């Protein structure tokens, strides 16, 4: 072939294609030195050259990997030439003609490339003013497949950019309905489809400029009835892309008529792809993708939009949410449980602190701790306060202890352990010497009123002259101090031991191991006498800073005219201050006695002298100067002598002794040795190794407490008691309380009985035992006293309150039953019942529980419905009865010793309160029978009521 040149620049290398619009040459661009495509178009261009040049320049600026570069455009010999990149490869129509099919994934990849190119082409960013370009002839023939298996969109018809009339591609099957002037848009008229053959020819169409006309120049062979003017836009390209993909996938060219296009099979192709293609080929352009980017996105998001992906994501999301929720719930639940456990533990600790404080006598602290264990505000993070907390509060408040007796009042905190204590006769003030100081304490408030410097010796003493004045061993010497006025009245010479005459007018003082005593006029401080001990001195330890063995006796008589003193040499002497030369030696030097106690009681002088082996007790009539009584013992005598009597303690017995007759009136008789004792007008306080106890003047036990440590300092006066120890920095204050306001009935305390009951109407009280019973009216009148016959054969007694009235049923071993009226004690019936089961096993029932009470073994409560064990009850006693009292249960027990007591229980049988001396329960009222011959009654307090009481108590304190 002869060399052919076009425009003197392009050397034609080959003619590679021809179509209805022109020929396509492969040429060599001589200047660029590269192969280019020359597309020769014979159709006339009606545009002005300058406009043409401008548009070519714009096309030359199109740069995209899937669009061939346009280099130039020129006209030669009435032929329009477009110069563009030569794209190696083959157009996709050729393999289609060969019957080749492409896998879906490959078609998608090409679709994406094609749409990227179209998106670029359509975007209104090219030229000035910026505008986009429509390809208008997208079809497999215009897609080149490169050696790299990419596609390239070729065959741009620049005439479309110009709006030329007759240069628009219209390939059958690929062209959109708009190409044929058909308008299936939402607001458009449906037009009749023109009849053209379904081939690949480019159909040249002319459009009328006037939109109202519906005429169009068509192919001569065609015939149309009526066509509306429609301008192809980007959506037309979208249609063509869809049709092209349709062909590539199915191998079949789509129908020319858009409405006759068969939808691709969803069994053969992915439903998403079918939908994309169907949408892009919608006859109605308004229902197609409105931009190439939109269709591109549809392909780019195939993975994400696939229903399987969505289902999987949804499943994952649901699963994650569900399990996360469960995890959060689990963690929240565990956290809640942990907080509740922590608060429950805290409440238990606070309850224990309360118990400990109560044991130490710190009532205020005990109530405070108990209230903290019973918070008012509740939340789901806080555990319900345990029964122990309510019990601690009940114990601290002592609401169910209606016995008359001494109760813990307060505790005095001292800087160090006390060495000597004294209590005023009205019981309102106390003095305490500790470590070189004297503290004056208000008993009611337990506050230290003032602190004064004292002699630094454990021998230092303090005495009350009256309720407001004290004599004590001050730092500068013996000192009298007026508490009310807060000032010193007088002071004398150094002193440690101090004694005051009964009339309070004279005081004797000795300083450590000095060999004399100084006697003062207490009113003025004037020295009235100096008593020479004759080079003898009282017992003094080597180190007298920390301990006072209390081995010495120093005493003045009623008017301070006689002074009794013991000495380290074992002698004991009475000094007559009015007759100094008179010597009354009661014990000689070398007696061997090392410990002395005693004093004056009226005209008598009573003392005890002890050594390691024996103890002697002597009573002397000082007026007659004769011994009126006395004995020795291997036991240890302890003596206190006062104006109101002589009190002698030995081992476990404390008596008041008549110095004339020697008669002894028991004050205390217990089973353990008595260590210390103190006596007031009405009560006696004693300590043992384990306890301290209070007795009334009839030697009846009032109260008893366990002590943690030694109480070697004791004082009692006017209903107040003071206990201290040289091992503790605290002094415990006990206060006598009586509960006569709760009194229901009083009887002769000497009448021996086991149980007491009240009739339901409250009018009659019965006190009974196996031996017999008494019936009283509530006002106190004895109605009947009955002896039960054959008492030794009695098996059991039951006080019954029912519709038939109140009665006492006596059950004998042989099954005989005798019933006595609780009103008048008359015999109501006598009948023979069944022989009894001697195991003494009993059962009690409440609304929800069954209680078992075996004779041997632990009583237990079981759930009535399920039979499950709810709780074991008190194992130290025999359960005699269970009463339901509202929301509570009251269990009554009898100990081996025959003591009756009760327990207040909640619905879970947890102990809320101990009820000592409980004898009866009527509705929600508890009745107690005290050994003092008192029947007292109180209602059951709810937790809220207890808390109110506790708060009020804290406030008043």
């Amino acid at each position, binding site marked *: 072939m002869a060399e052919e040149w076009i425009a003197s620049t392009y050397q034609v290398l080959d003619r590679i294609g021809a179509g209805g619009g022109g020929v396509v040459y492969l040429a060599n661009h001589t200047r660029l030195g590269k192969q280019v495509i020359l597309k020769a178009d014979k159709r006339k261009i009606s545009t002005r050259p300058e406009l043409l040049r401008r548009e070519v320049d714009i096309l030359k600026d199109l740069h995209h990997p899937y669009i061939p570069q346009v280099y130039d455009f020129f006209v030669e010999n009435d032929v329009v030439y477009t110069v563009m990149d030569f794209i190696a490869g083959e157009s996709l129509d050729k393999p289609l003609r060969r019957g080749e099919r492409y896998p879906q994934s490959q078609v998608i990849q090409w679709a994406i490339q094609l749409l990227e190119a179209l998106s670029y082409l359509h975007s209104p960013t090219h030229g000035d003013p910026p505008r986009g370009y429509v390809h208008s002839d997208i079809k497999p023939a215009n897609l080149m497949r490169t050696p790299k298996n990419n596609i390239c969109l070729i065959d741009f018809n620049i005439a479309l950019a110009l709006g030329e009339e007759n240069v628009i591609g219209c390939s059958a099957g690929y062209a959109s309905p708009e190409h044929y002037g058909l308008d299936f848009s939402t607001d458009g008229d449906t037009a009749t489809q023109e009849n053209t053959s379904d081939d690949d020819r480019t159909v040249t169409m002319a459009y009328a400029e006037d939109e109202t006309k519906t005429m169009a120049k068509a192919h001569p062979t065609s015939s149309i009835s009526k066509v509306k003017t429609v301008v192809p836009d980007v959506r037309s390209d979208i249609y063509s892309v869809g049709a092209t993909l349709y062909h590539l996938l199915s191998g079949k060219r789509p129908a020319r008529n858009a409405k006759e296009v068969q939808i691709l099979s969803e069994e053969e192709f992915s439903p998403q792809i079918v939908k994309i293609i169907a949408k892009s080929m919608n006859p109605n352009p308004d229902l197609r993708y409105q931009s190439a980017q939109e269709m591109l996105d549809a392909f780019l998001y195939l993975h994400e939009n696939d229903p399987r992906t969505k289902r999987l994501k949804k499943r994952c999301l649901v699963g994650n949410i569900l399990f996360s929720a469960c995890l959060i*719930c689990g963690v929240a639940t565990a956290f809640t*449980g942990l907080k509740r456990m922590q608060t429950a533990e805290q409440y238990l600790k606070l309850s224990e602190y309360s118990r400990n404080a109560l044991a130490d006598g710190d009532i205020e602290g005990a109530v405070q701790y108990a209230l903290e264990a019973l918070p008012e505000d509740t939340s789901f993070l806080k555990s319900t306060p345990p029964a122990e907390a309510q019990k601690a509060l009940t114990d601290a408040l002592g609401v169910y202890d209606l016995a008359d007796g001494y109760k813990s009042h307060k505790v005095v905190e001292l800087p160090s352990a006390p060495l000597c204590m004294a209590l005023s006769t009205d019981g309102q003030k106390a003095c305490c010497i500790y470590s070189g100081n004297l503290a004056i304490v208000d008993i009611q408030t337990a506050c230290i009123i003032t602190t004064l410097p004292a002699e630094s010796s454990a021998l230092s003493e303090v005495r009350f002259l009256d309720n407001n004045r004290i004599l004590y061993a001050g730092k500068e010497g013996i000192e009298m101090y007026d508490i009310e006025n807060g000032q010193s009245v007088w002071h004398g010479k150094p002193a440690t031991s101090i004694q005051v005459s009964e009339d309070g007018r004279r005081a004797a003082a000795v300083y450590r191991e000095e060999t004399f005593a100084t006697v003062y006029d207490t009113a003025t401080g004037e020295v009235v006498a100096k008593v020479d001990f004759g080079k003898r001195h009282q017992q003094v330890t080597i180190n007298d800073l920390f301990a006072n063995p209390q081995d010495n006796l120093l005493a003045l008589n009623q008017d301070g005219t006689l002074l009794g003193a013991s000495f380290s040499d074992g002698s004991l002497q009475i000094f007559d201050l009015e007759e100094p030369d008179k010597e009354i030696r009661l014990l000689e030097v070398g007696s061997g006695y090392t410990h002395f106690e005693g004093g004056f009681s009226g005209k008598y002088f009573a003392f005890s002298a002890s050594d390691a082996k024996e103890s002697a007790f002597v009573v002397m009539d000082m007026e007659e100067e004769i011994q009126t009584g006395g004995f020795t013992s291997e036991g240890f005598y302890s003596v206190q002598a006062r104006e109101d009597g002589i009190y002698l303690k030995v081992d476990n017995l404390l008596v008041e002794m008549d110095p004339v007759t020697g008669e002894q009136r028991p004050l205390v008789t217990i089973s353990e040795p008595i260590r210390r004792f103190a006596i007031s007008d009405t009560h006696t306080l004693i300590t043992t190794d384990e306890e301290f106890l209070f007795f009334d003047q009839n030697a009846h036990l009032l109260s008893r407490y366990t002590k943690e440590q030694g109480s070697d300092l004791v004082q009692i006066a006017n209903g107040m008691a003071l206990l201290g120890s040289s091992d503790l920095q605290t002094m415990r204050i006990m206060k006598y309380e009586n509960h006569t306001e709760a009194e229901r009935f009083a009887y002769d305390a000497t009448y021996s009985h086991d149980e007491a009951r009240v009739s339901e109407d409250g009018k009659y009280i019965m006190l009974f035992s196996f031996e017999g019973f008494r019936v009283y009216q509530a006002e106190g009148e004895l109605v009947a006293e009955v002896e039960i016959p054959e008492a030794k054969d009695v098996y059991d007694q039951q006080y019954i309150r029912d519709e038939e009235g109140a009665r006492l049923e006596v059950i004998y071993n042989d099954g005989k039953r005798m019933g006595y009226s609780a009103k008048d004690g008359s015999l109501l019936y006598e009948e023979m019942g069944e022989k009894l089961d001697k195991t003494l096993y009993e059962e009690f029932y409440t609304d929800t529980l069954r209680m078992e009470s075996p004779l041997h073994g632990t009583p237990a409560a079981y759930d009535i419905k399920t039979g499950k064990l709810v709780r074991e009850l008190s194992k130290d006693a025999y359960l005699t009865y269970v009463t339901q009292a509202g929301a509570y249960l009251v269990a009554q027990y009898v100990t081996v010793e025959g003591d009756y007591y009760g327990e207040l229980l909640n619905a879970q049988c947890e102990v809320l309160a101990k009820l000592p001396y409980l004898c009866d329960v009527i509705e929600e009222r508890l009745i107690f029978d005290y050994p003092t011959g008192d029947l007292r009654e109180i209602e059951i307090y709810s937790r809220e009521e207890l808390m109110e009481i506790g708060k009020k108590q804290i406030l008043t304190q």
Partner: protein
Amino acid sequence: MIRLSNEVIFYGGILIAGCSLLAMILHLCISQVQKVRLHSKLVQEYGEKQKK
């Protein structure tokens, strides 16, 4: 009984949380396997995911 309830709540919560955690881990593992399988299937159908 109150103390027992608190412990039941605490340990029950731990149990629930533990089981939830195990179930979540199992669920994640299964989901991951399903995702890989599905991805493989989708790649087979649609080709590799194109970068946006």
